[in-house]
């Protein structure tokens, strides 16, 4: 029974990781950008929610609604004025620029908010739990997982069912030819990064309610997110969810054996999956 419990906790944890990863997956799918600052942008979003919640004395869920357009704008500006200028055949500039951005955001937050641990407080919901067929699960982890599924479902709908999604896919296929269709790739990329930041804000909301955060935790979250994206198969959103769940379950199982092994098990699972399936579980196309 304890194993089923561990498994369920792991799956739910995977939901959080999938939320971390969904934005990355989208951005990679559209513009082949590997954003090393994504983890720090999630932490930035958490601080935005915290600031809004404190200043206006709001519940973090309400504060997040205000933070979402702010973060969309952050993503849009970042892409338009910085990232679009370094996208290209050479992989080095975007990697190094996002790496620099990561350090700047991390230390900027450190200057502004100090290294103290913070938390978003959502009231009694944090302690509530429900029983699912004999396994007791917290409402927050459950909500996180459900949100992850909804977010990925929504992203998929956007990607495959809307005019915007059509532009995303076409731009990803052939950046020059979309110009002949009247589509400006730089605008498409800016919107994609804006959406990725919206997802990052949702991830930040759950991150901040479920655990303490401080400016330094971005890179570790970034790694979990990337692991989820890579083992899920590049460009596949549902694959990203599966990847998140695999990392989450591995961490939970590892922790059940020895608490010191939690993080290590997640990383090892990543390596093992890639050794068996070099292109991940659900690769979208032959990149």
């Amino acid at each position, binding site marked *: 029974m304890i194993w089923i419990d561990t498994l369920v906790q792991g799956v739910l944890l995977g939901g959080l990781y999938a939320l971390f990863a969904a934005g990355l997956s989208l951005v990679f799918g559209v513009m082949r950008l590997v954003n090393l600052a994504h983890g720090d942008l999630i932490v930035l979003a958490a601080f935005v929610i915290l600031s809004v919640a404190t200043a206006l004395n709001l519940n973090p869920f309400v504060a997040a609604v205000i933070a979402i357009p702010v973060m969309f704008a952050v993503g849009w500006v970042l892409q338009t004025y910085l990232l679009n200028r370094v996208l290209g055949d050479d992989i*080095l500039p*975007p*990697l190094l620029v996002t790496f620099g951005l990561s350090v700047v955001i991390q230390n900027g937050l*450190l200057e502004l908010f100090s290294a103290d641990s913070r938390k978003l407080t959502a009231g009694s919901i944090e302690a509530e739990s429900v029983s699912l067929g004999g396994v007791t699960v917290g409402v927050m982890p459950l909500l996180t997982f459900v949100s992850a599924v909804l977010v990925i479902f929504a992203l998929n709908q956007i990607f495959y069912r809307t005019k915007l999604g059509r532009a995303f896919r076409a731009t990803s296929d052939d950046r020059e030819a979309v110009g002949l269709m009247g589509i400006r790739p730089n605008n498409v990329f800016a919107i994609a990064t804006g959406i990725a930041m919206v997802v990052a804000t949702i991830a930040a909301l759950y991150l901040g309610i479920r655990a303490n955060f401080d400016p330094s935790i971005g890179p570790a979250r970034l790694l979990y997110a990337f692991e989820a994206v890579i083992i899920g198969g590049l460009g596949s959103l549902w694959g990203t969810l599966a990847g998140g769940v695999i990392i989450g379950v591995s961490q939970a199982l590892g922790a059940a054996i020895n608490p010191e092994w939690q993080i290590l098990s997640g990383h090892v699972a990543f*390596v093992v999956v890639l050794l068996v399936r070099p292109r991940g579980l659900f690769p979208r196309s032959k990149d």
Partner: protein
Amino acid sequence: MSDPRKITRLIQLMGLAGVVLLFLVPVIGSRALVQDLFGVLTLLILAQNWNLLAGFAGLVSVGQQAFVGVGAYAMFACVILLGMDPLVGIAVGGVAAMLLAIPMAFFSFRLAGAYFAIGTWVVAEITRLCFAQWKALGGGTGTSLPKGTTKTMFGVPEIKSWLGGSSSAASDALTYWLALILALATLIAAYLFLKSRMGLGLQALRDNEEAARSVGVNPTRLKAWVFMLTAFGTGLCGALLFIQITRVTPEAAFSVLDWTAFVIFITVIGGIGTLPGPIIGVIVFYFLQRTLADYGTVYLIVLGCLGIAVMLFARRGLWGLFTEKTGIELLSLRQLPPTENQAR
């Protein structure tokens, strides 16, 4: 005086004089200066290795801290568990890092393009977490070198009797000289390597992988060699660093900020893909760190912004800008006869 070749000659002579001066620092300089410069030189070694990896072989690793950490831990294991001299431990550290590079390459080379960076980073994290389990070396809290180890290190008594002063100062001098020699050796080795058949193949690969393949360059094998060799250099440097620090913890030995992030910025700002780049970068870094020392993490923000600015406006860094503006080249890797060079 406007003749670039004359200026080049002058700079080369100044460089030579600088090297001689650097060798004399422990004799004529203060101990604080020796320690400061030790820090600079070790960063330079790490930057040179990363530059070879990312700037020449196109392997953007964010996992170099793995090699520093393994080098450091291997040296500690030699001293504490096997009772060896730390200097032997340095060599073992280099070899250990190279051994780690084999499975690491096997794994991360599967990840295409930018995801290679993530792969190396994950492997570095795994290595850190594994070493945190090594109870004989203190597990997660780490351990120190036994008291007096560095004072009785091979060569220290001799240096002490030669220079005078304390044993600690003599051991600082020794590690300093080792760092200087390693930095110079790395520079010369990199130059000779890049001028060699393999090195030319590597640069051909950077320009056009298909063409390079068609003239018989095996990209994967070549890159794997560079990965292993730079791992060796980085491991040596890691072991050397921690002889001076004398205390090792998983967090410090596998720090992504100290051993990879700084190194990346140093190389990028100085000029990635150029041999003098890391030297310029490390000088800029040193002065930034000193000037902004009182403002907490501000220098990190400045460093990050500088790195971004370089990528936006001058992809070959400060050295690239300098070369472009003046026509002066040092350690040039271009295969052009000097007359044509002058005609530019």
